[in-house]
């Protein structure tokens, strides 16, 4: 057996899959190593009884429609990875429950007292009009934001086309740089958006785990624009379908994949990686390495002290770990109509202030902020006839498991799930608990186990203004520990999200392919 590869990809998460697929397609002798028995990391599925659950994907923007595929759908097509996409034409519904004595409270759906109940439609015009109907005076500021984000995408096109005109970039697209240099909050204030409307407008903060007061407008809008412009998509057969399609594309292009194959050490020669040890025993060698393991664990786990430049350690220690999640997966023995669900994605928040929501999630798992998804709204046949699938997500920050004993963990999981389900029942005025046929609960240790990240974060590093997409992009190559070893995944340029991770793999592969073809 020939043990030498052009490129070894460590970890078959979304980033690693895309990296291996592009390298294999370019004709590089590619080996993809994954410690688990399945591809995808977050992008997977699991079966309980007669239900197959989606572990993590809420929705994906930038897929487009079958007759007009865009970014990620094109990426999959380009790689020969076939996915059956299902689109849904809504953004989100934000509900903020009201205390009995709250003067802003009113009686909403199912007789529940709420302060905010905003079902936001797709389309810039429709979205802005709806926002205005909820908070008068927000139409103009909202339309201005979408004008800015449209301009921003034009600038992105110019930057990625390779035909960069610096004069035009700074004159026509000056506002784009301003968006990158200022927070969401600062920009919305500058555009005169009323406070309450800002709360509704920034509800997507949870998808990136970064609050409006700390997060840059450029990156927030790159996501928000995508969802509001065209709605979102999902793979028909859970995200395991996307991972299987990538697996097949890699093999079809001559790449090799090994599951149950954990990289336990990176081998060094002349101060640079030259190979890896698999499962503590087998050595394989490579010229280039793409690493889908979070740097916070990759550096201490895979290298001996002194092998990694001090600078690389600083880039780990100097950054806060991003959010982790609490998830509850419910297989229901009633249909969505019987249960009373008619929205795909509902954000239940303790306050309409997104910054406050972020602060309430520090060091705490709990039911304050819950996203509830009814999968059958997006994929009607995702569960057997007469049933439905609900998926609850909470967000938390910090080392929330410190001091939790193994024997207390099962009870803790049940307690937190119970609180989250109760919160949904009370806020929506619906009954959920008696109809639970299957339940699974994921806490940060669950994500730690499957994703191998600090605090079990699926989100990489905290996306703050100072460490957001654009500064990370500008310094990407400098951020890598060696000139033949590139990180990919949520810890890199674009942070969390499936699309961002696929992109990170494509980017790392591009740099490796370039060096390879230049004979370096």
């Amino acid at each position, binding site marked *: *057996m020939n043990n030498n590869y052009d490129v070894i990809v460590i970890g078959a998460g979304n980033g690693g899959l895309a990296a291996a697929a592009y390298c294999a397609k370019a004709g590089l002798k590619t080996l993809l190593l994954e410690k688990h*028995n*399945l591809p995808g990391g977050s992008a997977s*599925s699991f*079966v*309980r009884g*007669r239900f197959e659950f989606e572990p993590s994907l809420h929705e994906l923007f930038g897929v487009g429609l079958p007759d007009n595929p865009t970014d990620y759908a094109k990426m999959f097509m380009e790689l020969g990875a076939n996915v059956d996409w299902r689109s849904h034409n809504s953004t989100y519904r934000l509900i903020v429950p009201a205390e009995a004595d709250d003067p802003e409270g009113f009686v909403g759906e199912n007789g529940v007292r709420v302060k905010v109940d905003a079902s936001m439609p797709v389309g810039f015009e429709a979205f802005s009009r709806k926002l205005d109907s909820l908070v008068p005076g927000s139409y103009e500021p909202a339309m*201005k934001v979408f004008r*800015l984000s449209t301009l921003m995408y034009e600038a992105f096109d110019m930057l990625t086309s390779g035909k960069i005109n610096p004069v035009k970039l700074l004159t026509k697209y000056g*506002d784009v*740089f*301003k*968006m*990158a*240099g*200022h927070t969401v909050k600062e920009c919305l204030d*500058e*555009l005169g958006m009323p406070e309450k409307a800002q709360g509704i407008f920034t509800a997507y903060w949870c998808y990136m785990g970064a609050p409006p007061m700390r997060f*840059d407008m450029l990156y927030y809008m790159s996501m928000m624009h995508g969802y509001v412009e065209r709605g979102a998509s999902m793979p028909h057969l*859970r995200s*395991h*379908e996307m991972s*299987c399609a990538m697996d097949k594309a890699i093999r079809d292009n001559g790449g090799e994949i*090994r599951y*149950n194959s*954990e990289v336990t050490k990176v081998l060094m020669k002349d101060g640079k990686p030259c190979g890896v040890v*698999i499962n503590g025993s087998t050595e394989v060698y490579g010229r280039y390495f793409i690493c889908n393991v979070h*740097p916070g*664990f990759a550096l*201490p786990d895979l290298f001996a002290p002194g092998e990694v430049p001090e*600078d690389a*350690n*600083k*880039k780990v*220690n*100097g950054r806060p770990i991003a959010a*982790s999640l609490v998830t509850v997966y419910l297989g229901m*023995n009633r249909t969505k109509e019987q249960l009373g669900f008619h929205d795909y994605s509902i954000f239940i928040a303790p306050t309409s202030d997104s910054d406050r929501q972020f602060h309430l999630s520090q060091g705490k798992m709990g039911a304050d902020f819950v996203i509830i998804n009814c999968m059958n709204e997006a994929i009607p046949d995702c569960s057997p006839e007469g049933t439905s699938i609900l998926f609850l997500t909470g967000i938390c920050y910090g*080392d*929330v*498991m410190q001091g*939790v004993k*193994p*024997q207390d*963990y099962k009870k803790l999981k*049940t307690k937190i799930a119970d609180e989250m389900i109760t919160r949904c029942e009370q806020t929506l005025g619906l009954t959920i608990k008696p109809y*639970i*046929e299957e339940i699974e609960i994921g*806490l*940060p240790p669950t*994500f*730690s*186990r499957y994703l191998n990240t*600090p*605090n*079990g974060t699926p989100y990489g590093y905290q996306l703050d203004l*100072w460490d*957001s997409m*654009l500064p990370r992009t*500008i310094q990407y190559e400098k951020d890598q520990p060696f000139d033949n070893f590139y990180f990919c995944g949520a810890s890199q340029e674009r942070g969390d999200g499936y699309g961002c991770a696929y992109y990170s793999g494509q980017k790392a592969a591009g740099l490796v392919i370039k060096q390879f073809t230049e004979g370096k």
Partner: protein
Amino acid sequence: MESLLKSFNKRDFISVVANRQKRFAAADGSVPAGTDGSRELARALHPKAQYVKVAAVTERAPDVKSFTLVPDPSRGTTALAWFGAGKYLTVFVTINGMPVTRAYSISSSPKASLEGKYELTIKLVDGGLVSRYILDNWQVGTEVTVSAPEGNFEYQPLRDAKNVIGLAGGSGITPFLSMAQAIADGDEDFELTLLYGSRNKDNILFFDELAALEKACPKFRVVHVLSDKDAKAGKGFEKGFLTAELIQKYAPADAPYSVFLCGPQQMYEFVDKELAKLDLERKFIRHEMFGEFHNPASQPDYPAGVPETVKITVTQAGEKKTVEGSSNDSVLQILEKNGVAAPARCRSGECGFCHSLLISGKIYTPPHMDYRRMADLQFGFIHPCCSFPLTDLEIDVPPAK
């Protein structure tokens, strides 16, 4: 276009990049800690393997023994993983150079695991290779390797009724024994009424232990159901089988109840028909897996004209070899019989640990064991533990690890 963000300067962004470099320069340059509470907990609950030693052997009945397993620090295990009552361990053994696995429910309490003790109770299976080997060979001091606790046969308060009727047959008593102890210890909180089917009084496993638990714990009750025609029954005994009438007799009349089943395949075939008469909601019936499936040709949808022997070309970690076996054996069994160690945990189709790629050829999976993901069916992945070859196959199997 006129600027919409008039009071901002486009150069503000430059300071963002400079700020990032400054922050990194000031950061700690030592090796990152590489640990946190979530990682520690995940590792404690799901170790890659547990290295243990047999500390005691207890003869429970003819051909039934309990083995007490304790950590073996000399091989790197200093503590045992805690588990929810009802879980199983996969045991790894090598018999005449053949690497095989078996799943056994833990019969001891979760609490005992914290004191460094698991108990597995193993009954000889007719023609059973592994159970024979273990009963004949394991003695005090034997080194054993087991998996982390696995499986989903557990009480879940948000899903199950507060009252549970446990239906056990033979050595299917083991997970219920663990559950009853967990209730007595306060680790679980539900009312368990156990209907335990045995042929006669002499065949009952853990009779004294169950009686003691019943006495000590008001939430647990056991009813022995004896099937031999001339079995002597008395107070606390029922005669016959695990029928719908019997379940109704012991189930609460005015409250919902869950039924948990653990026993051999034949018991499920009988009890499932009885349960159908009770018209319970599907969520209230939960089966533990019964292990390996044999004789696929007995299934009504098994195709005709399958050759007796098949060739399997297997690639594992980049190395290819071809083995031969009987089409009556699962792909996993054929690999093991040829000395190929393959990943396996539940051996019942459910856990998916053996997930492998079928490159060419056809297999048969009994429908009731087919827990593959939908995309697996589309992309050609199989669970070798319940896949029976219908033709020669080419497969890619991950290393056993």
